[in-house]
Every structure is written in C-alpha cells, then in structure tokens.
C-alpha cells in the first residue's frame, strides 16, 4: 500500500469503491479533500450527519436523527418515503476514537453488521474505509436478498423464501 505514497492518485469520477471482501464483509472506500478531524466531525455531529446521510437521490427523507456519539451511546435514524412505514435504523456506538476510528452496531435485526469506519489522513486528505462485518455468510446473503433494515416483514419473508429456493436449486444441481 505504501509503495507509492508520494504520488497521490488522480481522482476518478467514481471515487467510491465497494466490494464484498469475504463471505461476511463489505468494504467501501473514499478519499476526502480535507483533514481527518473535519471528516470525523461530519460523522459525529448529528446536525452535520443529517445533511449528508440521506441524499435526495434515494427518494427518501430523514424524519428524525438522534446520535449520541460516545462509547455506549445510541443512535436512531428514521427514514421515510412518504408512502410506507418509516424505516428505522438503530444501534449503539462501541468505539469512538477521535479523528481516527468509529465503530457501531446495527440492531434493526439480529443479523445486523458491525460497522467500522477508519479515517486516515495523508497530506491534508483523508482516506475513509468503511467496513461492515456480518455475523455470518447467511446474514450478508440475506441483506443482499433485500432483507436489510426496515423492510416490511412480508416482503423480507418472500425474499428469504426466494433465497432459500435458489440456494436449494443451486445445491441440487451440483
């Protein structure tokens, strides 16, 4: 990683990367043009968090946003699209290391991930790495099948059935 640290890569259009790192992990990265303490502040101050967490392009709006950003503190976001029941995202912060590291739980379901965000400053820029670790492969597969936080149960069950069926089908082919 540090072999070519002098040559700052030119920002591409898609500066955000995302990949499934393993059966249980998702990793997202992005570089911000500012020092880590500023990026960290934007993640840990509810008034600032509110301004970017739910972009307009999602068609959703943030109905409420509470975040007590300290170890053991809880957060609760309510998102709505006007039509259906609001989606609720909640959990607690389990690690808050100023300007460098933030860890929280996702407790919308028993299969929620633990999210770790690290802020690494290099020459006035900040490399942000967001890492989501699910309790099992099935949990991440489930999230991918549409069972993520806030889905209405009926829909989630249907997708779970779809997933089960596809897994069964896949297995019986081998």
């Amino acid at each position: 990683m540090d072999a070519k640290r002098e040559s700052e890569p030119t920002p591409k259009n898609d500066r955000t990367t995302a990949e499934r790192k393993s059966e249980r992990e998702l990793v997202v990265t992005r570089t911000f043009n500012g020092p880590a303490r500023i990026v960290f502040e934007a993640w840990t101050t509810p008034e600032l968090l509110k301004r970017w967490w739910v972009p307009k392009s999602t068609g959703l709006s943030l109905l409420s946003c509470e975040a007590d950003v300290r170890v053991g503190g809880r957060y609760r976001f309510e998102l709505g699209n006007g039509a259906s029941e609001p989606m609720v995202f909640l959990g607690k912060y389990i690690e808050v290391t100023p300007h460098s590291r933030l860890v929280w739980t996702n407790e919308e379901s028993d299969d929620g991930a633990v999210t770790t965000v690290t802020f690494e400053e290099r020459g006035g820029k900040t490399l942000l790495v967001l890492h989501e670790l699910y309790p099992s492969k099935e949990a991440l597969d489930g999230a991918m099948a549409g069972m993520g936080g806030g889905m209405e149960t009926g829909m989630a069950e249907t997708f779970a059935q779809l997933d089960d069926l596809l897994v069964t089908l896949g297995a019986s082919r081998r």
Partner: protein
Amino acid sequence: MVQYMQTGFDASFAALSDATRRGVLEQLGRADASITDLAEKFHMTLTGMKKHVGVLERAGLVATEKVGRVRTCKLGRRRLEEEAAWIEGYRQLWDARFDELDKVVEELKRKEKVDGRKKRE
C-alpha cells in the same frame, strides 16, 4: 435502504409469486427440460407454459436455448448477477452520501479558515 434504490428485485418477486413458476424452478433444479416436458408435468397448455417460462426468463431465473425445434429451459445465472447488482446499488448509495459529505467538508474547511483569520486579527 439499498433495496429501495433498485427495482431489479421486482421482477424476481413477481416471478416467484406464482406456485407453478416456483414448481418449474424446482423442476429445472433437478434437470433441464423442454417447454413441452414442463407443460406436461404441470398439466398445462404449451402456450400457458411458454408464458410462465417467459416471466422467469425476464427475471433472469431461467435461461432458454433453442436447439432445432425444441426449446430447452435451465436455471438462469441470476444469483451472481443479483449480487453484483446489489453491490453496485450499495456503492451508489455511499457514493451519493459521500458527494453530500464532500460539501459539508468543504464548508467546515472554509469556516475553519475564516475562524482562524478572525483569531489572528
């Protein structure tokens, strides 16, 4: 919330809402079959079965191939594609968030500069 941003699942949702189509998938899980075979197994007209297979095909759950006069059906490659599509939706969500976060970061930087200048004065 990624799931709200993509409609790709709707097709498979609709495809799986029907008992016959679920049965067809189960059947194809065991072995490839022609539309004629499937129509017979499910006591259905050829036209009726063609419709069901069409729905499954559009959802990517089934792939068909015509060899001579027989159209053979097999399971589609949906699962891999589904995962790739999900990750792209997930990436886009974060990308959109981070574009907004960029603006917040710029604003905080400007504010810090102004505050710093004030202090020196």
